[in-house]
């Protein structure tokens, strides 16, 4: 079909959108514990405002299967009694939701001014060299994904690295990156320094 007689619309010329649909993925349903937890979260908002819990629901999806799929979004929509489009709208907007498979450890290096002034670029570079991957990529072993992140709000302990959206590593240096990756492999998340405010108390 054509919207204008003189324009060369048509499937070949026209349908070249860069938009990629999220993969449908495996059939998805929350585990009973997570469903109960989400129901409890919903109860904190007015009954007709279950939609408020959509961010919490998507975090739970990610906890269960690492990244968001179309099946999962459909399940969340049914759970919250909203449309799948409303869930996709939110899932594609917020940066902390992964729309494709990621490694076991997602390494998110803060790149904004204060961290950059303290050498964040060098940290990213060292991580990239050590892992042999570029930004947004996952290494062959499926262990690490490397990302840059915008201001994490810990500028006094720059540069800051966040792992898996939750765990902090402060005052990263290019020299210790290699050791950090090895330690993550062997010791898991305890290899990270944590947030000093949390640790020092």
């Amino acid at each position, binding site marked *: 079909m054509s919207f204008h007689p003189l324009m060369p619309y048509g499937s070949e010329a026209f349908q070249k959108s860069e938009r990629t649909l999220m993969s449908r993925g495996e059939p998805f349903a929350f585990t009973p514990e997570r469903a109960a937890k989400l129901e409890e979260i919903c109860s*904190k*908002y*007015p009954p007709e*405002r279950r*939609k*408020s*819990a*959509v*961010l*919490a629901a*998507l*975090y739970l999806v990610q906890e269960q299967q690492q990244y968001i799929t179309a099946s999962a979004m459909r399940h969340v929509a049914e759970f*919250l009694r*909203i449309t799948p489009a*409303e869930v996709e*709208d*939110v899932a594609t*907007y*917020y*940066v*902390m*939701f992964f729309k494709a498979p990621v490694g076991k450890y997602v390494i998110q290096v803060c*790149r*904004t*001014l*204060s961290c*950059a*002034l*303290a*050498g964040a*670029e*060098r940290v*990213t*570079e060292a991580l*990239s060299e050590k892992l042999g991957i*570029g*930004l947004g990529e996952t290494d062959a072993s499926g262990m690490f994904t490397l990302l840059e*992140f*915008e*201001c*994490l*709000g*810990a*500028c*006094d*302990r*720059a540069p800051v690295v*966040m792992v898996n*959206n*939750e*765990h*902090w590593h402060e005052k990263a240096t290019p020299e210790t990156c290699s050791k950090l990756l090895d330690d993550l492999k062997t010791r898991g998340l305890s290899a990270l320094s*944590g*947030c000093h*405010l*949390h640790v*020092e*108390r």
Partner: protein
Amino acid sequence: MDPILTKYVREPNSFTLDFFLKHDGYEGLKKALATQPNDVIDIVKASGLRGRGGAGFPTGMKFQFVDKKTPNPKYIACNADESEPGTFKDHVLMERNPHLLFEGCLIGCWAIGARVAYIYIRGEFYHVQKVLESELAKAYAQGYAGRNIMGSGWDCDIVIHRGAGAYEAGEETALIESLEGKRAQPRIKPPFPAVQGLYDCPTAVNNVETLCNLPPIMLNGAEWFVKLGPEKNGGPKLFCISGHVKRPGVYEASMNTTIKELIFDRAGGIREGHQLKAVIPGGSSVPILLPDQLDIPASFDSVQKAGSMLGSAGMIVMDETTCMVWTAMNLMHFYMHESCGKCTPCREGGDWLWKILARIERGEGQMRDLDLLTSVSNNIAGKTLCAFGDAEATPPLTTLKHFRAEYEAHIREGRCTVPADWRAKGAAALAH
């Protein structure tokens, strides 16, 4: 001035309810509950407390604007989405003094007649959120939140809501949208949140530090608060100092303190062997101050008079190794990435500004690019729904204003002319 909000943050147990109760904890709330809500608003107004999130709007006025006659519920939405680059003060307050925030939320709720306060905390602060949640459970268990608070017969809930990584969620109407489970995009104002906010009900959106000031105001009175700082800039203020200083950190001081004192006395001055080049005094969204402009009180009004803004008091200090074209480019990457996409000037303009800045930094710029930068920036500022547009236009405009020669040197010599010892060797390969 002795610290007030952060007095005990270095004590290992400062975050616990027991510790808080031993140090005047919930005494401000007790006093508030014995006072008529309208009188509480009057006290807050008399204190002159100004919003600590960035705009510096009087908090008492904000409370007063909340529609009291509506049959609908009213809400407090606490903005704990601290994401202005260079700002990390609310982080300390929540991690080390969570009950002060709860107390502030409850006083705010009492004043405007709300029964729920939502604390919208950024997703990256998950470790902070866990502290808030466990301490909130204790407050509930001991009758400092929930039903019949402190035996007064008054009920009020506090709910912690986790964001998911969106700078724009720090804008008050975008925060409300995000709380409703939508994209964090701003609404057209008016109606202001005080009339039609969360779930279309009257809502007061307040920053963490702002709410944390309410308990000491209730406890010590408005007059005490006013006297702590210069006229119209009373009370304690948290300053976040980061960048090329010896002791980066959060420092609590009166707004009588000069920026120079904060940087050189409190934060220890510039790192060894280097000189100060420029300071961004209030988070990345505000204009730069030069070294000779720093001998002014760090108050909302003085910094504004000097041509910048106190904003969120996130001070980013840069020494002579910092290239100002690169600085503008780095911040523009932030704004390009964080633009919510609702208004065309900001969404498209940010992208173009970043492209132009990046090509100048690479040494591929032309002199006419400088006028182009100014023109694109001026077509964003003031032409968007929220203040993001003004913030986005600031880095190129302020660096061009003060460091035009540096831009011209990049273009003339075809390379970055400022040697930095902290940048990556192959920065270009990482698509910076």
